Each structure stands twice: as structure tokens, then as C-alpha cells.
């Protein structure tokens, strides 16, 4: 009896993995299928941002941050993953009406597909980051083993936020626009192109309330300082992210039946 149950559960997990695999693959194929530059398109956007911001804050308004190109690129890649996932993920339920109406289709997988697709874009850009590290003479250290943990926390945090926004988006279709504005503000309120250390001391505690600040700084410890990131803030945000995901996934599942009627 118990064995049968476990087998069923394993089947289900295997199936969900296959579904995720196919949907992520579809996302990636569609993005690159009909373009000559192919995968380079993913890199073009962060590289353009890098060029502009590097020009402004590296040359014109000098921030005097060592290894600024690497510093900036790390921030941009992490922030772009977060921002693109949140924005696209929020629309993922409304944009996939026909899938939501399929018998047996698990709607909860759509936000996971979005975050996973953009995660792959992040991974595809990592070789360029490694080139920047090489140019700056920074070694690939044992701190790299911390990367999966930081990836996981950012993944869980993004997913936790998306479940909430995507469920609201079904009822209120301007949620995505509002979120767009919030993310625009978020870009400036997160140390993507600047360093919190340069800010007035009274502002610094506020940045501890921004999980993306902690996450980006953790990436920077690995890629720039070649050190393990500070454990405690990362652990705390990890726990908060898990709690958030647990809560919003529940809200999402509760709202699940409503999607069919509202779409």
C-alpha cells in the first residue's frame, strides 16, 4: 500500500519534471529559433546595459569601485534574472489561457517555467563573467561552491513573489504594469550599479531589508572578493524566502480554481 503510494508520487514528480523540461525548452527555442545571432541575443541586453552604465559611472561620474566592470556585470545579471522573472512570471497564468483550461494541467508550474528559463539565460552569460574575472586577475576560488545556495535562494524568493502577483494578475489585469513601475524603482533601490558601503551610515540598515541587496552582495563576494559570502544575512533571507514561497504557493493553490473561470 505504502509502496504503491510512493511509486505514484515518484511518477508524478517525474512527470512534472518532464513537463518543466518541455516548457522551458519551448521557451528557449522560441526565443532563438528564428534569429541568426541565436543565443547571443540574451547577452546583448546586459552587455548594452553594461556599456552604458560603465561609461556613466566608470568614467563620467566616477564611483571609484575597484573592478567596476565586473562589479556592474554581476549586479546586472542577478538583477535582470530577478526582474525578467517577476515581470514575465506575473503574466504567465493570464498568457497561457489554453493550458490552464487543459484537464490535469498544473497551473503552478508556469511560474517555475519562467524563473527557470531566465535562470538559464543567467547561466549562459556566466562565461562572459568569467572572462571579466580573468581580465581583472581574480581567481576562481572555492567560494564558487556557495553559488548553488545563492541561486537557490534567489530562485525561491522570485517564485514566492510571482505566485502572489500572478494570482492577483488574474483578477486585476494592471498588476503587471504596477509591478513594472515597482521593478523600475527597485533597480535604483538595489545596489546594482553602486556600492552600499558608499552610502550614508544611517541609510545602510534600510538596505538590509532588501533581499536582492543581500543576494547581489553575496554574488559579489564569490566573483570579486573570491570569498564565501556572509552566512547569516543569506541564511535569514533564505528562511524568509522559503516561508514566503510556502505561504504564496498556498494562496496560489487556493485561487487556482478561480483562474479557469476568470480567464
Amino acid at each position, binding site marked *: 500500500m505504502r509502496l504503491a503510494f510512493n511509486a505514484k508520487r515518484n511518477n508524478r514528480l517525474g512527470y512534472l519534471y518532464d*513537463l518543466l*523540461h518541455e516548457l522551458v525548452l*519551448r521557451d528557449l527555442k522560441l526565443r532563438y529559433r*528564428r534569429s541568426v545571432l541565436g543565443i547571443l541575443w540574451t547577452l546583448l541586453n546586459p552587455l548594452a546595459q553594461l556599456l552604458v552604465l560603465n561609461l556613466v559611472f566608470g568614467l563620467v561620474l566616477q564611483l571609484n569601485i575597484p573592478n567596476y566592470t565586473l562589479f556592474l556585470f554581476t549586479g546586472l545579471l542577478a538583477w535582470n534574472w530577478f526582474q525578467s522573472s517577476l515581470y514575465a512570471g506575473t503574466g504567465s497564468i493570464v498568457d497561457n489561457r489554453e493550458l490552464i483550461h487543459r*484537464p490535469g494541467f498544473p497551473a503552478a508550474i508556469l511560474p517555475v517555467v519562467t524563473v527557470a528559463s531566465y535562470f538559464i539565460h543567467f547561466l549562459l552569460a556566466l562565461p562572459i563573467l568569467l572572462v571579466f574575472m580573468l581580465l581583472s586577475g581574480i581567481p576562481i576560488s572555492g567560494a564558487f561552491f556557495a553559488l548553488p545556495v545563492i541561486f537557490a535562494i534567489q530562485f525561491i524568493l522570485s517564485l514566492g513573489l510571482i505566485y502572489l502577483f500572478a494570482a492577483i494578475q488574474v483578477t486585476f489585469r494592471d498588476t503587471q504594469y504596477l509591478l513594472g513601475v515597482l521593478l523600475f524603482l527597485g533597480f535604483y533601490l538595489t545596489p546594482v550599479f553602486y556600492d552600499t558601503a558608499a552610502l550614508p551610515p544611517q541609510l545602510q540598515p534600510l538596505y538590509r531589508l532588501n533581499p536582492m541587496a543581500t543576494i547581489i552582495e553575496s554574488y559579489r563576494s564569490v566573483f570579486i572578493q573570491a570569498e564565501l559570502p556572509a552566512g547569516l544575512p543569506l541564511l535569514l533571507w533564505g528562511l524568509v524566502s522559503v516561508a514566503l514561497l510556502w505561504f504564496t504557493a498556498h494562496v496560489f493553490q487556493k485561487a487556482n480554481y478561480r483562474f479557469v473561470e476568470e480567464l
Partner: protein
Amino acid sequence: MEDVIRVEGLSKKFSRYRSDRPWTFQDLFSAAGRRSLKRDEFWALQDVSFSLAAGRMVGIVGRNGAGKSTLLRLVGGVGKADRGRIITQGRIGALIDLGAGFHPDLTGRENVFINGVISGLTRREVAQNFDSIVAFAELEDFIDSPLRIYSMGMHMRLAFSVAVHIQPAILLIDEVLAVGDHTYQIKCLERIVQYKAQGCAILLVSHDTSLVSRLCDEVIWLEAGRMAAHGEATEVVGQYLVEMEAENR
């Protein structure tokens, strides 16, 4: 035979679409939005009960808006009943919205994998059935071409072929048997009959009453969400047709 579908006292309530329902936060915070928050409801299905054994086929007839598709979707687990319950056993296959997830820029092969997995197969199962899916769709020469060059008929054949390869215990069919030309339609119907013979329980929604009385063992006639009749196929279809004609006169 064991029942694979049991529907007991099923009722489903919908809110009527109102153009002044708030669709955005902007609406919600304006006076017009708040006024419409009270809901205007109606019963799409009321007190529907039936059961279906493996290897049996039930047709559902009724005029537009009688609740036929709603019933089918609820049995498929899409949406939630307001009253009553539905118990189903085994994998559910659906010939509803064929080709969900199909994308014109991907090849037939890629689309078969995506659509197959969306329909409930694992990747390995799609791979095992792949040749058979392509053969049934009669698309061997086009399978590696992008879907956008397919004709409407080819498109439908591929979608139908994936759908009939998932070997369900329960098959839900909503008006999608009109696939391809006459010969191909016969081939599709034969496949359905074959499934039934293998012990698949089938729910068929159709306006084609002659098809329904030919294929089905029993028929449910839905009238404004209620069961007007339920019984032997030709008998119920007969009653239904008499009523429809009486109205036309």
C-alpha cells in the same frame, strides 16, 4: 464492471459576465468599480448525477449553453464544483482544445513532444509512441517542418493523433471528431470505438445526434443545467429531437 466516473449531485454556479466588473485596480478605486462588486450568479449545472463504467460511452446532448462543456471540464478536473462531487479513476484524456501548446514556429516533432507532455505523457512515453503518433496523423513527410506551413487539416490531424495516444482510462470528447476529410474522420471514429472496446469510459459532447445515437450506449440530455433525461441512447435522442422540432414549429 467497475464505475470509473461517479458524479453525485453536481452543481456549478457561475457569475454572469458583467462589463462593469472591475478588471483593474484602476476600476476598483473608481466609483464604477465598487458598485459592481455584488455578484450576479446563475447555475450552470444543477444536481447532475450519473455514473459510468469502464468500456461504456455516454453522449451528452442539449442546446447551446445547457452546461455540456462545463460538465465535461468539471469531470476533467478543470474548475471546482459548488455542490456535489466527482470521483474519477485513472488517467483522463481530453479531446478538448486540441493542440494546446502548439506553436507555429516549432517543428511537428517538437510540437508532438510539448503537446504530448502537456496531455499527460512523460517524455519517455512520447518517445515510445512517437512513430505511431506520426503514422496515425499521416504526416511522416512533414514532421520536421515547422507547424506554420501545415494546413488546417494537417494541424488538426497531428493534434488528434497525440490526443488518442495517451491511453486514458477516461476520454472526454467535445465536438472535435470533425477532423480532416471524410476518410480520416472514419479513421478517428474507429479509433474511438477501439478505445471503448479496450475498456475506456468515454464522455462525448456533440450536436451530431445521429453520431451520438450510433456510438453511445446511453445519453444524458441537459436542459439549462439540469438533467432532462438520461437513458438508452436512441430513446433519449428521440425525445430530444421531438422537443427541438416542436419548438421550431
